[in-house]
């Protein structure tokens, strides 16, 4: 048992660290939920791609570096520590790409992934619907068979990034007679296509971080279906597990936030809040070590599975508590709009999205602890 990075990981880390030091913009980019911020973030993806740092874990021929999981975790840690820009491409690279690697055709891989890696196509997820939030199987949007493809009808909501993104992916009902999980098909579609209407939904901070998508006879060629028609639920579950697991919430994010909290504590110590500050750091460290444990298990051929629910419950609660502690340390300044309140508002979504924490607790109790359904 050890926590020593492999020599090539150390070399990779040093390269990443040096590159980030040289290239991360000194001033934060504008919010990616504004038009100018979206453009700036798209350009940043291009800059990353030019250094072959936008999708390090992908194969080299698709724009990546064949980085190991260990290297990926280290990359993320360096990335967050450098306070580099948020990834506007994250829905594509962390949700859609793993699905394509698992279920996509070779043609899909070479067509879809390189422009994704360069930020030329930004992807939005389209999971939820008004009546299907936590209950994804209640999806009503449908895809009707047509010549050479499908016509999409219906409404998606809480579609992250969709306000300004290029393309979307999600599940559509192709067999209306089938019950719940059955008869769903995994589809990629163009957000600029005829029949698509996108309406931004302002979040707590007032910016349209997600959107509603209305689909009225939107044509999608067969080439843009992932996996077999009717098999979308199984295809999506591999993505969902990725969303909840390692990919979207790398420990680097929380370690960097905990470091900022400690910096705040040094400037404004408050003995009565000491234990909360310590617990935030310990919580971030615990998630990092838990991730290394998972990385080792996956490297040994293990699966992420229901244990990803444990990670999600932990980081989502840690993130809220960490930011609450920061706001409390700030005293009267705690209500000022700024990085800490932005991080706080963002953290509040953690216990809700990617499967609410109530559902994650059910998963832990039922699948890992044998409780009856």
């Amino acid at each position, binding site marked *: 048992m050890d926590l020593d990075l492999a020599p090539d990981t150390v070399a990779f880390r040093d390269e990443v660290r040096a590159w980030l030091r040289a290239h991360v913009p000194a001033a934060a980019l504008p919010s990616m939920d504004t038009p100018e911020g979206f453009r700036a973030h798209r350009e940043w993806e291009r800059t990353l791609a030019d250094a072959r740092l936008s999708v390090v874990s992908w194969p080299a021929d698709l724009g990546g570096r064949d980085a190991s999981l260990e290297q990926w975790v280290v990359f993320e840690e360096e990335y967050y520590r450098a306070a580099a820009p948020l990834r506007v491409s994250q829905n594509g690279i962390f949700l859609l790409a793993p699905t394509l690697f698992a279920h996509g055709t070779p043609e899909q891989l070479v067509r879809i992934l390189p422009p994704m890696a360069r930020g030329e196509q930004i992807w939005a997820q389209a999971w939820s619907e008004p009546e299907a939030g936590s209950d994804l199987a209640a999806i009503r949007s449908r895809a009707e068979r047509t010549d050479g493809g499908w016509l999409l009808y219906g409404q998606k909501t809480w579609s992250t990034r969709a306000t300004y993104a290029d393309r979307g992916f999600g599940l559509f009902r192709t067999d209306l007679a089938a019950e719940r999980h059955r008869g769903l098909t995994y589809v990629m579609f163009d957000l600029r296509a005829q029949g698509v209407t996108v309406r931004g939904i302002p*979040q*707590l901070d*007032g910016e349209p971080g997600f959107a509603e998508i209305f689909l009225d006879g939107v044509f999608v060629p067969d080439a843009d279906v992932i996996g077999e028609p009717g098999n979308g639920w199984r295809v999506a579950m591999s993505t969902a597990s990725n969303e909840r697991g390692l990919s979207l919430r790398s420990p680097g994010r929380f370690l960097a936030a905990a470091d900022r909290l400690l910096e705040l504590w040094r400037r404004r110590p408050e003995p*009565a809040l000491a234990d909360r500050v310590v617990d935030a750091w310990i919580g971030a460290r615990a998630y990092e070590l838990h991730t290394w444990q998972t990385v080792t298990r996956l490297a040994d051929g293990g699966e992420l599975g229901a244990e990803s629910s444990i990670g999600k419950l932990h980081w989502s609660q840690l993130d809220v508590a960490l930011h609450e502690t920061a706001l409390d340390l700030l005293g009267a300044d705690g209500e000022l709009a700024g990085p800490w309140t932005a991080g706080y*508002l963002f953290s*509040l979504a953690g216990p809700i999205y990617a499967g609410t924490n109530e559902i994650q607790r059910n998963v832990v109790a039922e699948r890992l602890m044998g409780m009856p359904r």
Partner: protein
Amino acid sequence: MRFAIAPEQADFVAGLRRLLAAADTPAVLRASIAGDHAPARALWARLADLGVSALAVPQRYGGLGATPVDLALAFVELGRAGVPGPAVESVAILPCLLGQVAPERLEPLLAGSVIATVAAPPLAPRAADCDAADEVYLCEAGTLSLAAVQRRERSVDRSRTLATVSATSVLGEVDAGAAIGLGFLASAAGLLGAGEAVLEQAARYATQRVQFGRPIGAFQAVKHLLADARVGLELARPVLFGGALSVGTGDEARDVSAARVCCADAAYRAARAALQVHGAIGYTAEHDLSLWLTRIRALQHAWGTQRWHRSRVLAELTG
């Protein structure tokens, strides 16, 4: 011993609640967020007609000289409805300060034709809602002054504007303790009302929203989230009125700060529960819940933080 509101107080509350229920305060708040304070001013004028702005003005200056309990009752309703500020400042704090050094400035305040705000560093380093106010004051080191805005800052609650201010002309020396004590009480009351409002919204939503074939309120996890938040609010309410009754006694510092601690905690817990029950829709600025959520967070930091009030209670208990 009769620890319950009197019939005439219940009538006052009912009248206020009726007015506010008809006022579409979410629309008023959204206008304030957009920088249009006219709807808020119109609402304030109607509240003044009902006597809200005259509550804490002494009778010798034409005010109602209402009891702290009455003040708290009014602020619970303002908080519940999400009335934009400056309410704590204009209604609870300034009447007591101005009465000491500039009683002539009270008349337009109690009539509701002037809305005013005040900063009181270091406890309240910025004046809240100065964009909606006609007058800005600074109360610092025992001196009350007229003040001018120096630098505007944004609050996590987008309907609030904060500003650092500087004195332009000194009005005189004041004993700020009693005034700011009323501010603490009003702040506690407003938070309790806001907490009750978000929990009611959440409970309503839980009976309507269907997932997995049932209203989500049928799931025990949702029930228990709501129940725990309810317990917090139910226990905070008597502490608020206990604090109101203590104003002017030797227990005021202890009991008013205890009220503020309880009400702010209970409101915050209710807000977190309400967001979790609503799920993603509660996270949107379009949903009214968001107006209360950000306000409840912001008010944790206004007129003394929870930490500041807790250490005040402890000092009173062990000092």
